[in-house]
């Protein structure tokens, strides 16, 4: 294990920010720390970096207990959300900072900075001060500085948050490869589920100072541990409907607008339990009224969303439903319509706790294979 955290706790005054966080990241792997703002992500990164100390718990890097080890001795590189460039130094001196700390020769520093600058396409602005750089260039300079010292552990605190949408998209495609080439152990903090899924070998979902789920992107997306996580992953947000499983002739099912949606046999034990049915918008599709098992509804609006078409509809019972389909495929723009549910992708949560009720749906099986 290159990085391991054991039962980390941290409070500021009466405010518990981290409440027993444990994590392990193998060498060369990327763990995405995902959660809403105020979940404790940034505090956790700072604890690993050593700029603040935990109240309890152990941080280990490469098997070495980091308690009492100064930040400069931890072998860490870090990129900050607000870039945190040294305003009085040129981009070159910023990037060179970890190398000067390592007392490298002038020529080694020069070549180290140059090769990183080439990789990140900022060679032409190396002489500029931070205030003369565009946001994108600042962000790349900050990344270059984090990488320059060839750190064993790389901490990236939402580095794409403050750049524009287009650049963020480009960096999302480019950055994972760049990071992999470093052979570093990476913790990447983000609030954007797409970044989380694109970057992470594993995703740790953190909320209220606790890790709520750790898993591969597939596991988190296909079998979210609770409704909160299900809502955080996916755009448009997952449809959550209050249901109560019933037993039918062919096994357990739930009724959505009086239409039975079959559940796997493993849910036989959940009959009459108050539940929430989670249906991803892409698991719902339009069908002709003649198709058996379709649910009637009224389409309110339709909107394009990143190469998808999102439809907002209302069922006969007044439940709002969102459906999504690939852009360019046909569908009703307004008025009455019918939909079918891909039952194999349905998720069942306990209504009281919001926890996922384990059953072997196809989606879950798929997650395990992946």
């Amino acid at each position: 294990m290159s990085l391991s955290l054991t039962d980390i706790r941290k409070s500021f005054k009466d405010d518990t920010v981290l409440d027993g966080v444990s994590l392990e990241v193998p060498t060369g792997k990327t763990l995405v720390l995902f959660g809403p703002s105020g979940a404790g992500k940034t505090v956790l990164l700072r604890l690993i970096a050593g700029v603040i100390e935990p109240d309890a718990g152990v941080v280990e890097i490469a098997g070495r207990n980091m308690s009492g080890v100064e930040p400069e001795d931890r072998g860490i590189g870090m990129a900050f959300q607000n870039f945190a460039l040294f305003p009085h130094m040129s981009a070159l001196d910023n990037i060179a900072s970890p190398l000067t700390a390592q007392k490298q020769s002038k020529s080694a520093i020069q070549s180290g900075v140059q090769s990183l600058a080439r990789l990140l396409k900022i060679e032409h602005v190396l002489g500029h001060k931070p205030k003369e750089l565009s946001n994108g260039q600042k962000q790349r300079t900050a990344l270059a500085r984090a990488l320059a010292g060839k750190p064993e552990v790389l901490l990236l605190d939402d580095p794409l948050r403050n750049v524009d949408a287009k650049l963020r998209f480009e960096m999302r495609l480019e950055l994972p490869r760049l990071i992999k080439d470093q052979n570093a152990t990476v913790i990447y903090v983000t609030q954007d589920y797409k970044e989380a899924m694109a970057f992470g070998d594993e995703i740790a979902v953190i909320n209220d100072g606790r890790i709520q789920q750790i898993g591969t992107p597939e596991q988190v997306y296909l079998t979210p541990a609770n409704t909160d996580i299900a809502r955080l992953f996916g755009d448009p947000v997952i449809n959550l409907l209050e249901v109560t499983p019933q037993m039918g002739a062919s096994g357990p099912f739930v009724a959505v607008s009086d239409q039975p949606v079959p559940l796997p046999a493993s849910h036989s034990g959940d009959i009459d339990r108050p539940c929430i049915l989670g249906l991803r918008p892409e698991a719902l599709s339009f069908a002709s009224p003649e198709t058996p098992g379709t649910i009637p509804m009224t389409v309110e609006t339709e909107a394009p969303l990143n190469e998808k078409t999102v439809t907002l509809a209302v069922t006969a019972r007044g439940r709002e439903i969102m459906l999504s389909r690939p852009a360019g495929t046909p569908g009703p723009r307004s008025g009455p319509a019918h939909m079918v549910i891909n039952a194999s992708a349905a998720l069942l949560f306990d209504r009281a706790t919001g926890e996922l009720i384990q059953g072997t749906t196809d989606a879950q099986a798929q997650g395990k294979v992946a």
Partner: protein
Amino acid sequence: MSETKLRISNIDKFYGAIDHGVHAVKNVSMDVEDGDIVALLGSSGCGKTSTLRMIAGFEEVSRGSISIAGREVHMLPPVKRNVAMAFEGYSLYPTVTVRDNIAFALKSSGKPAAEVAGKVEQIAAMLEISDILDRYPSFISGGQQQRASLARALIREADLYLLDEPMGQLEPQLRTLLRGRIKFYIKERGLTAILVTHDQTEANALADKIAVMEDGELQQFASPDEIKEAPANLFTGTFVGEPPMNVFPAKARSSDQALVFDLQDGSELSFPRSVFARDLHDRIMALQSVMLGVRPYAVQRSETGAQARVLANQWLGDQSHIAAEFAGGALVLVEHDRAALSEGDAITVHLDPSDLHIFDPASGVAVSHGASLAG
């Protein structure tokens, strides 16, 4: 023909002296039809907010005229323009509850209390703020304040609704749903709204027409579909659409049967001459160097076509975003199934001439769009 609700005629905005100060809005004209939602879209400093503030009356019009519902308003103070505005900075009255904030305008217009109360409840439910109606603005989150501010504007009866970055602070999970509801609300009542946003996703989702602005100039004013299929220039083409449009510099060359584009890495794209109209062919040849654009959704993997090598394949739950090395750059394509590709895989991509956008690299102006190629 529906009537024109808002007419902006050749307006300029200078900060400082006319013709000497900062020229924030440059000769912008547009007509907004009754019942349309129009998005002013652009990056910060493009002039979109200045334009909105001129419509609202918070900013003087340096030159040109604005009329709302057939009335010249650019000399009138904001209160006389009959517009409702939701501010980016929330600007709720801090001393009264969210409920009273929302009800304020209706109450002062003398509507019966019961009717006002009902309307407030209804709009609060739509914007998911029913549970915070009795709190004070400083005790609710930024996203909630923004929704309250939106409710306060939408509940009013006005000729025009002006929404300044209405969803910037909103929790991401709520965004798509609330966009749908707000669009339905506006459409159902036939309201006319102008929204300012830097987020092209939001503009696409809400607007009937998008006014793309950059550097104070109106770049294009058209429906989302039109901007997607026929962007007026390189800026519009690459600014609107996520994933963004792929662009490649190329040199055009004509042979007997084909129009060939030489790409930066030495490879070439060749199309039968017959797909290009005669005059278009001549224009491309006159330019020689062109910028080719192709939208990610129009790039298909196929048996035959151009070779590319996968750089990244990212599965996002319901889409795969694939980046492939092509023509010395990265070509992005979107698939709706999970693509079984990993870094280094060779793929063959088909670029259909009907999906190809050609731009003049010097001016950025579009020369042709796929749809207009043949004929």
